[in-house]
């Protein structure tokens, strides 16, 4: 007895300390790696974005003065906007102010773009977050049930349903929802937005349909990926190992199978986000929401270059930060080796 008892305590403490250090180090490592990946991403993407104006040949003078402006007037306006300076200088200035949160002013009405986008972002983020919640929740439910009941009628039904909703573009879903639930049955308002401060019920009622329309794609992808990862994980030897150790099926599912299937599913979710941002343009158009996507569409149609650039910068920032969150969760779920780092 006395031979093993004394060394136990220090051993345990060492384990605990190592564990904490391990976790903290892992979070830092993930952050560092993500930064290493995303810094060049951000630089290149903003550069491309900024180069759009030069490529387009658009000018604030045309927007403000119309087609019959004299060359002198155009030059004056362009100088006013600083467009006569070298390209790289312009990019440098623009990038610096972007980093400070200043996206410039609109060519059309001279309003501050950051403010305009900020106004729309609340709407869009409410819808997108709600869509993600629906997508993750329903996707996990469908994927899990299909995997646990694989090769049964339930599995085939779910797989069929998922296939159907995966081929429905957001605007088709949106139209169906509007015509059936809003126009036909009158269960939801067909258009518009009410901020949460004016009543959570009204807010939810207004964002439910657009969120549903956006979520179909997420539901389909999450359910499909989760099902195949779960089925794959169940075929692994470590499941046999856990069975032989006498663990219950429930425990095996949660601590062994689900944990390993989560990684690919989260990665799918991360890749889905840019599509979600893009699809918001369409859904906001259908549901008459004055959100980020609508602003993007309007600015692009009006040829308001700084506004479009601002929209792109913000969307890239959104995608990048969402992926950062996904990576952090991934790092928590799976040890480093399995992400191929």
């Amino acid at each position, binding site marked *: 007895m006395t031979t093993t008892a004394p060394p136990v305590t220090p051993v345990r403490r*060492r384990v605990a300390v190592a564990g904490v250090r391990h976790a903290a180090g892992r979070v830092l490592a993930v952050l560092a790696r993500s930064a290493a990946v995303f810094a060049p991403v951000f630089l290149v993407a903003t550069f491309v974005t900024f180069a759009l104006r030069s490529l387009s040949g658009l000018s604030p003078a045309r927007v403000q003065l119309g087609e019959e402006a004299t060359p002198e007037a155009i030059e004056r306006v362009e100088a006013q906007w600083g467009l006569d300076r070298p390209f790289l200088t312009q990019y440098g200035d623009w990038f610096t102010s972007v980093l400070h949160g200043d996206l410039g002013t609109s060519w059309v009405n001279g309003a501050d773009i950051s403010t305009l986008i900020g106004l729309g972002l609340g709407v869009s983020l409410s819808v997108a977050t709600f869509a993600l919640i629906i997508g993750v929740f329903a996707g996990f439910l469908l994927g899990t049930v299909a995997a646990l009941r694989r090769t049964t009628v339930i599995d085939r039904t779910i797989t069929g349903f998922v296939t159907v909703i995966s081929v429905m573009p957001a605007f088709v879903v949106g139209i169906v929802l509007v015509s059936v639930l809003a126009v036909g049955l009158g269960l939801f308002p067909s258009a518009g937005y009410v901020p949460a401060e004016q009543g959570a019920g009204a807010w939810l009622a207004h964002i439910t349909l657009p969120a549903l329309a956006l979520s179909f794609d997420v539901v389909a992808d999450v359910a499909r990926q989760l099902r195949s990862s779960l089925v794959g994980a169940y075929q692994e030897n*470590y499941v046999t190992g856990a069975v*032989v150790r006498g663990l219950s099926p429930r425990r095996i599912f949660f601590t062994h199978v689900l944990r390993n299937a989560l990684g690919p599913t989260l990665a799918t979710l991360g890749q889905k986000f840019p599509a979600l941002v893009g699809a918001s343009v369409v859904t906001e158009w259908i549901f008459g929401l004055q959100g980020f996507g609508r602003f993007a569409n309007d600015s692009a149609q009006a040829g308001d270059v700084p506004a479009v650039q601002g929209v792109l910068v913000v969307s890239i920032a959104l995608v990048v930060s969402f992926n950062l969150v996904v990576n952090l969760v991934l790092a928590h779920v*799976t040890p480093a080796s399995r992400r191929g780092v």
Partner: protein
Amino acid sequence: MSPLSPDTLTPRPERPRPERARPETARPTDDGGSPEAAPVLALHDVRVTDRAGDREIVHGVTFTLTPGKAVGIVGESGSGKTLTCRAVLGILPPHFEVSGGRVDLMGEDTATKTPRQWTDLRGSTIGAVFQDPASYLNPAITVGAQIAEVLRVKRGLSRRAARRRAVELLAAVRLRDPGRVHGQYVHELSGGMLQRVLIAAAVAVEPRALIADEATTALDVTVQAEILDLLADLRERTGLALVVVSHDLAVVAHLCDEVLVMRRGEVVEQGETRSVLHHPRHPYTRLLVAEHEQYGLDRFRHPSGGVMTTPAVKAAREAEPGAVLEVTGLDVHHGRGRARRRVLRDVTLGIAPGEIVGLIGETGSGKSTLARAVLGLVPPSAGSIRVAGEDVGAYGPRQWRALRRRGVIQYVFQDPLRSLDPDLTIEDSLVEPLLIQGVRRKEAAPRVRSFLDRVRLTPDLLERLPAELSGGQRQRVAVARALVTGPRLVVLDEPVSALDSANRVQVLEILKELRASGVALLLISHDLGSVAGTADRVAVLHRGELVETGAARDIVNHPVHPYTRLLLGSAPTLRGRPAGRAEREALRALPAD
């Protein structure tokens, strides 16, 4: 002091579950199983049927296992030994079922058990460990947490107590620095360490019986010796009953009291280990024992052992004197910058025509690197390599390609399935080296056919895909592919380690016959028996250095270097007793020179 101190694994008297009371004899007494002890596990004419094909696969297995006893099951792959184990554990694959006989665990018929009762039985009454331990542990959770999980679920221990006990268990399976291992993941540990972890998890709640299904297969021989020791220790100290499944007779001979020899689902011979293996009665058992004596180490304990040089081989050597391969003072480094480390140090080795040189070494000894350096796949950092008289050490990619296109050197890989393109037919794979040389397909095809006979393959295999061949057939195809260009030197990297006994013997016999054609073979293996039974000379590689080279018989019978002695002492044999733990530790501690 043994870390396996009595308090770590035998708290039997104060077991928290009195309802599953042990018979008196179950205590870790001086001799674990007296004849009157109640059996832990009893199989009576157990049959397993594949419902999908409605075929009976296992045709009646009967044995009784009392506490502290060990039963061994030997047989080639497909003999039904693993299915029998799975039937005992209640984990048969979906469409298989126990179609006859009964399995009694602790005197109770398992056929009546509900899934929930099975869950309770597994782990606490019967446990199991398998080959390829890495795949049987969850890669996303630390290994310690997986042991603690069992303790928490089965024993109801608190998180903290479970962790402490898990670390104790890791110490009990003789892992160095158990506290550290507890917090590590599967990918951070070696195969031997993982097998210990798996054993620790399997015995965490002290089951009465443990099934070890090929648990030491594919491990290095010194690691295997330690795992076998550990199992023997557990059996002796805690009265754990063992079912040892292996294709290696020596492992079973070393551990078991009783042995079952299985073939095609049938038990062809069964009895006390010594009498079955020393005086086999069934022809199949005799064949297994004979194969083992040819390609095992037992024979070398007798004066007649060793490889004979036939007149044909002698003639081939004299027709073309001089070395085919000359490696002198070879150094190889891996990695760059600070990660740069020396993998091979001052290796000197030669092979004559018609000679087989066996290269023995454990995982990480650098034996594959030596093969790859000889083949020009890894650049040497010092020393010279001469192949067929050409100094290839300084060859650039172009010169290497020119040399290779002449088909002077060929290579046979460990894994025959992966070394053949799954999309190409066997014929396509076989003619490829000739086509690369610029031979027309029309001429290449008949040349390939003439080689089939030498590797004992029939022409009807030519149009099949690799997936449709057995492992032994694939490896013989790989050997044939290496021979079609008429090479002077063939490097074989673990050519038989993925094969079972019959196929192993067949491939090794083919290799021995090749010597008469004057080809030089470098045979790399971690399996001492196959190398000793095949090679003319043996070279022992240890941590990148050749520690001993000499005639196979001399090395096996009179090893000089402590490492060679450790290797040979670790290998279990049919008749002799391998070196004990203390003896091995002493050899390990000896200075290199």
